[in-house]
């Protein structure tokens, strides 16, 4: 496990991320309305060490009631239309 933590530390040092310009707090709720899955794969990586969206105070939350932003991906299929409106 220590090797893993060491690798992660080196990773953090090697990726020169710019410091966040202004940190705030924003809660995001993701709704997939018929994307090609690319958005989801990339969104998953956004919270990885490489991009680390958390440093901007961005977070994905568990309930639409907690969210400030609905992040809709895809062209909104007919079947997702009703569900999107509920959210």
């Amino acid at each position, binding site marked *: 496990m220590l090797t893993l933590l060491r*690798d992660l530390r080196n990773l953090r040092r090697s990726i020169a991320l710019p410091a966040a310009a202004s940190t705030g707090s924003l809660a995001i709720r993701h709704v997939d309305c018929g994307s090609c899955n690319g958005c989801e794969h990339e969104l998953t990586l956004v919270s990885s060490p490489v991009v680390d969206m958390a440093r901007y105070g961005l977070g994905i939350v568990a309930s639409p009631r907690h969210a400030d932003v609905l992040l809709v991906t895809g062209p909104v299929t007919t079947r997702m239309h009703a569900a999107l409106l509920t959210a």
Partner: protein
Amino acid sequence: MNTHHGSGSAYGEGIAAALADGWRFASLHATTKDEGRMVRTLLSSKDGDLRIESVTAAPDSVPTIVDLCPAAGWDEREAHDLYGVGFDGHEPLRPLIDHDVALEQFATPVQGHDAYQVAVGPIHAGVIESGHFRFHVVGDLILHVDARLFYKHRGLERAAEGLALNDALGVVARSCSGCWASNAVAYAHACEGVLGLAAPPELARSRTILLELERVWNTLNDISAICAGVGLAAGTSRFAALVDDARRLNQRLTGHRFLFGSVAVGGSTLDVDASAISDARETLARIRSESSRAWKALLFNGSFIDRMPDIGIVDAATASTLGTVGTAARAAGVVEDLRTTSPRLAYDDFEVAVLRRQTGDVQARLEQRALELLPCLDILDRLLDGPVRPVASVRAEEGASIGVGRVESPRGATTCIVERDGDRVGRVRLRTGSYANWPAVAHAAAGNLLPDFPLINKSFELCYACVDR
């Protein structure tokens, strides 16, 4: 490829006889012809031979084959919902794509005083594609799961109809970016089958590189997802970073992180020069060493390993019955991999990686993935021995009205069937590894605990997008 056209009982008997001879179900779809609606069943043998059994709906139903091979269940439900074909003997024929129906029609009835339902999706917490699972539970115990997908049904197959063969590739392959290369190559193979084109070695090499590049990032992504499923943050972060490395490599080699635009019907335009090749070899070597180091760290983490065994079991018999494919089937002991029978691709002497304990549980699926990563990097290492140049297919035989392409995607066998309508697409059917495996996920979940379901689901790591199309 043999094509039989039977009517009524002859169709069923033909399939029964073929299945008895060791043929396996590969795909079933409905299509509209001048003579009426037709149903076509694709069967495959262990050696990669294919045959199609067709039957005309008279007037609007055909005999079911779900009693012969339950793997055809979803295909028949889809054919009914999209083409209105009835299947005699498939009772009850629950709707699959049709969402305008009451709950009682798609959900399996569960009797018992204490049982009730937990509905998850289509909108999930976290970043997950849209799909709905109706768990029949008592507390945390799952009795049965009804998966209701097709929330992302975009009608891509219908959209491809009438397009020129090469134009439709973009539409069909775009059904999913996680399996873009697999879908694109399967489609290209099907079209080339229709056109009577064969792949010269350079083309096979170029496409194999793409397929394996896709497999690398997907495998890393799957391991990362399983770490996330059990909340092992260190593992999730480590493998997520490696996924990003792999996708950046895709970008440098093909101009797109998901390899979009790197496959075409009847040839390849992929152009990679020597410096990019050496960069790729370097990156892949780094991914190899870093991922094996991280994997070893995972194996030594007791809390992580303890989560894996004995949950989400799909045994070999069930896997065969349900038509499970890919790593999920191999982890259960069904040693099948289309890479052993892919003459159009450059998998010389490919041998399937066989796991020591093929228990078909989450642990087996995870280990099978990790096991397959290294051969996959080996193949890339072998193939990336020089620049990749654009190349065209060569004409080899007469064209046909139906072409089939089958490719081993990161999630299992992906089958694409193209029926031509002149020089355009008449009907295209894409049946991906995810499509074949979803029934196994539902089966694996029953009898387990609700909080283990995300982990079971992630151990299959199926796409919704290429199922829904």
